[in-house]
């Protein structure tokens, strides 16, 4: 989403400092709301027995939408992970395409139904294919940025991972190489406090993972993932810094995980009910809605209209994706190696 320095003469003051118009603020809000509704639909379809598995990012949407909003579509790169529903939506994927991955149908642009849901990718969008081993993608984003620097393409790569994954060697090896060569890459840790069931207190030796940036000669920024505009500010600063050739940035967004790790996880086994209830207060969606209502960017009527549009889009995507064919097993041997055009 492009940003402008201009605000409408009759607009609110909310986005002025950030150069965001009311229209642009509403687009961020729409993407957060759309992502949440899509995510909830995925869980509903799982609980209804329609799909075997869901892994997603409820609670992460504010940070994902706001931080990836600064990227240039079709030019920059997004190297996502399995919670990046809102990020891939922001970077161009449609609800239909996301639900194709959920249903694992033949036209699924992420993998043609080969991968588990949540493993997004799309060459049309410069969204690199995702795997399941964690933190491997950090090196891919660094490599994309390395190529961008060598080829002088003016591209920025943005990648995301969880705080648990930031203990992996690939994360550190990637930051080191990015720091040495001042590569145009933004690494975003979405710290929701849990690596499946293990709390951050016994997975990480430090509380603020952004401090790890200091070891790799790059800024480390902590941002409240429930504060959408703070996330936008941090993301845009990092992306612009990368594009100016000043090097990488590590952003740590403190987010909350509103669901279990995946549809196969029962988080009440390791999280107290009070803690789960308290996390609701850190949900970025109602907080941003209140912010927009308070500033007069949004009113109840417009919100209801937007909600109806979102529901219609999700219903359409659900029905459409479900109706698509399964991949043909006769195609399952394809694409092991390059296939020259016939």
């Amino acid at each position, binding site marked *: 989403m492009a940003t402008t320095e201009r605000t409408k003469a009759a607009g609110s003051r909310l986005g002025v400092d950030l150069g965001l118009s009311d229209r642009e603020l509403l687009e961020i809000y729409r993407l957060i709301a759309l992502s949440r509704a899509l995510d909830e639909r995925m869980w509903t379809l799982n609980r209804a027995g329609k799909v075997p598995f869901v892994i997603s990012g409820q609670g992460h949407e504010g940070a994902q939408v706001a931080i990836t909003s600064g990227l240039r579509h079709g030019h920059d*790169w997004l*190297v996502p992970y399995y919670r990046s529903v809102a990020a891939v939506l922001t970077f161009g994927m449609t609800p239909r395409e996301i639900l194709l991955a959920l249903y694992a149908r033949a036209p*699924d*642009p*992420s*993998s*043609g139904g*080969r*991968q588990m849901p949540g*493993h997004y*990718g*799309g*060459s049309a969008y410069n969204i*690199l*294919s995702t*795997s399941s*081993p964690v933190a*491997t993608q*950090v*090196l*891919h*984003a*660094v*490599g*994309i*940025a*390395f*190529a*961008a620097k*060598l*080829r002088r*393409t003016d*591209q920025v*790569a943005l990648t995301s991972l969880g705080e648990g994954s930031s203990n992996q*060697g*690939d994360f550190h*090896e*990637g930051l*080191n*190489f990015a720091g*040495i060569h001042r590569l145009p890459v933004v690494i975003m840790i979405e710290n929701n406090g849990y690596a499946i069931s293990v709390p951050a207190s016994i997975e990480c030796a430090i509380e603020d993972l952004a401090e790890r940036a200091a070891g790799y000669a790059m800024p480390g920024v902590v941002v409240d993932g429930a504060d959408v505009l703070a996330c936008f500010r941090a993301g845009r600063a990092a992306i612009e810094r990368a594009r100016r050739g000043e090097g990488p940035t590590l952003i740590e967004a403190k987010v909350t995980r509103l669901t279990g790790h995946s549809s196969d996880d029962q988080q009440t086994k390791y999280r107290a009910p009070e803690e789960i209830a308290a996390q609701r207060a850190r949900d970025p969606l109602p907080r941003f809605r209140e912010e927009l209502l308070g500033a007069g960017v949004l009113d109840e009527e417009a919100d209801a209209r937007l909600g109806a549009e979102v529901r219609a889009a999700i219903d359409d995507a659900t029905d459409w994706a479900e109706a698509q064919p399964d991949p043909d097993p006769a195609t399952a041997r*394809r*694409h*092991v*190696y*390059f*296939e020259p055009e016939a």
Partner: protein
Amino acid sequence: MAVRTYIEAIRESLAEEMRRDASIVVLGEDVGRKGGVFLATDGLHAEFGADRVVDTPLTESMIVGVSIGAAANGIRPVAEIQFADFIFPAFNQIVSEAARMRYRSNGAFGCPITIRAPYGGGVHGALYHSQSVEAFFTHVPGLKVVIPSTPYDAKGLLKSAIRDEDPVLFFEHKKLYRSVRGEVPEGDYAVPLGRAQVTRDGSQVTIVAYGLMAHYALEAAELVAADGISAEVIDLRTLRPLDRETLLASVRKTGKCLIVHEDNKFGGYGAEIAAILAEEAFDYLDGPITRVAGPDVPGVPYNHALEDWFMVSPDKIAAGIRTLAAY
């Protein structure tokens, strides 16, 4: 034609490819000013500069992972792992990422990277500078595995590897680097991947080998020729994709097959060759498919007496041929 050593052929291949295609970048440990610990990249830094000949940190996973990302964004990386023994930190990137990128994206993304690594024993390298690691990778669909034995093949196969659209592991035997010379055409030629070569015609036993063992197999064939045994030698050159036609045609002719590799025997690459022959050439066999391979110990020991005990030699291969021929 010029006479080149094996390593000169590799260096020449790299330089010619980098001149031909500006998107090719060499990266690895000490590949820059030093030109690599074996000097495979000597002179490239001076000719192509630090942007295209990149000294990396001592982080093998990074070398491969960054190559994968760079390949997705228009660069054609040729990564060097300093010794095949140190490739394991990159195993996850090679096997989980590079090998699976095309399949998992249903053909949307490819991974055109070449990973060069010196391998093999007989060079006083002990456990961690002698390993043959090919079997770990030949197991994996999505990867190609190449092991040249001559300067001609080293140059021509490396060109094909670099031009290939898929990840290629290119293993170079350290002992061959300076011990083998051969004629290498000036200028451009490529040896296609996936084609074996019959390097000696024979009628009684087929010997299947690659790398240093392809040379030892020829020496062994010469030794047994004095006993009146006619051995055919196949240099596989590419382990995956395997040239089944050449293998099967030879074994159907001779009726006997001796497979030779330096890597230890259990679960080694030879087991797959043996299984293919058992499945597809059973009716033609006149003797047991036999392997001469490294012993099943965790590495090549350092002391010369121990190393000699470990290494497959022309004499050991000749003994295997004699036993099989007499069956």
